[in-house]
């Protein structure tokens, strides 16, 4: 086996080569000019759009402001969903009555497209951040609750039985045994969920937004500003990776026993 340093280097090389590969393909296609620039803009144009929007802004907000607005919506929706979906998932997993009650509701709304029911949210909550965050909350919810529920089903029953015979009550078993046992599954759910939430961002910024990175991409599409669109997409991809990385790091710190327990 090689040392960890060497492995780290190989990893970086491989990751970089896959990213560079895609970049190269993009560059070649753009340079060949098969498609008009507003569909496949050249990397240089995208870079120019980036520096321009980062400094002078796009329609009333700099890139950082747009990104900030969007991240605020995504993170708020996601965290609220974690606060509700994880406990509910644990409860549904450990109590079949709770499950019988909530399962049909979650299962019903889960496959519904945000675009289809967004109108109803807007009617109730208006066009402000409330309806946007609610939409993101609803998007973040199901992967969390399903992964959590499935995780509960795989808790070895001896762990719970041991706790019972040590005198732990329901609450203590819930927080002290079931919750930590499910952490690996919960983190998987969080990773799936944050990505999903982010993809819903554009839908949430379709209606009556004048800021946000998703809105910027959509709006640029209307004006056939391919460079801005690509730039926005790149920024979304990169920030998405960062959010995911944060969750992975949290998992490594909080669940060191993953795969060992």
């Amino acid at each position, binding site marked *: 086996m090689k040392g960890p340093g060497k492995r780290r280097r190989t990893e970086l090389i491989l990751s970089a080569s896959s990213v560079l590969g895609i970049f190269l393909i993009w560059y070649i296609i753009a340079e060949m000019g098969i498609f008009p620039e507003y569909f496949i803009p050249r990397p240089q144009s995208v870079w120019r759009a980036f520096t321009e929007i980062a400094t002078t802004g796009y329609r009333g907000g700099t890139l950082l402001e747009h990104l900030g607005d969007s991240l605020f919506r995504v993170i708020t929706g996601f965290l609220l969903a974690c606060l509700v979906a994880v406990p509910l998932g644990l409860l549904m997993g450990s109590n079949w009555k709770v499950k019988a009650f909530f399962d049909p509701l979650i299962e019903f709304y889960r496959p519904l497209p945000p675009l289809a029911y967004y109108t109803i949210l807007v009617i109730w909550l208006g066009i402000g951040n409330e309806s946007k965050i609610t939409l993101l909350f609803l998007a973040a919810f199901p992967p969390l609750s399903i992964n959590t529920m499935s995780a509960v089903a795989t808790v070895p029953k*001896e762990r719970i*039985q041991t706790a019972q*015979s040590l*005198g732990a*009550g329901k609450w203590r078993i819930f927080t002290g045994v079931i919750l930590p046992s499910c952490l690996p599954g919960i983190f998987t759910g969080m990773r799936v969920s944050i990505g999903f939430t982010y993809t819903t961002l554009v839908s949430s910024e379709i209606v009556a937004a004048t800021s946000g990175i998703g809105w910027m991409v959509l709006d640029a599409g209307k004006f056939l500003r391919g460079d801005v669109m690509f730039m926005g997409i790149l920024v979304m991809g990169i920030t998405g990776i960062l959010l995911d990385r944060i969750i992975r790091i949290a998992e490594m710190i909080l669940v060191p*026993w993953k795969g060992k327990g």
Partner: protein
Amino acid sequence: MSSLLKLSGVSVDFQTKRGLLTAISDISLTVEPQEFISIVGPSGCGKSTLLNVIGGFLSAGSGEVLYKGEPLTGPDRERGVVFQRPALYPWLNVEQNVGFGLKTRGMKKPERKEIVSRNLERVKLQDFGHMRPYELSGGMQQRVAIARILANDPEILLMDEPFGALDVLTREHLQDELLNIWGETHKTVVLITHSVEEAIYLSTSVYVMSQLPGRIIRRVDTPFSREYADRDSREIKSLPEFVRLREEVLGCIWS
């Protein structure tokens, strides 16, 4: 005073693909307070199943289980269990695992620490308190599970082959520790073991179970743990009476 634990006509069936499998059948036994009973029997005869019934984890398909005269409804802290496979919590280190029950009861940290370290010393793991379960050897994990239940100080100790993965030396040490605790705190113990010698040395009576479906085919009362509690174990194990009882139990198993 009524019996601490009373099983009458208990049977347990498991649903398998090819129909019902009767694991234990018509088991009746009574455990009085401060008794130390051992259960021996062939592999797969239903010992763990029986322990699960007594622990309250499994409800008997038929028959009755009374604890202090009341029907048993579920597990609680009066009956502490050591399972055949130690179910330690990987997110807690060894000390926290041992202190789990105490913390549940809201015991303050200094007191808890005291009890935890006393029990870790008992199982000779005082130097490993900060390690995680998955960093321990099989035998060490088993010892943590024993320390955990001892720290919790239940009324009955239910132990499923607690010393199975231990070397002779550690095993004898823990046997003597268990005897001391039993003698001092007047606990009741139900022990499943494969070592007939261990059973006779430790308990007040030994129950021998039959092949599947498990029934109790013999009960042998043994005096050693009561009478010779403070004598040397090797000496006791070579007493003629000890050898005779061992042969009796073994004979019963072999037949």
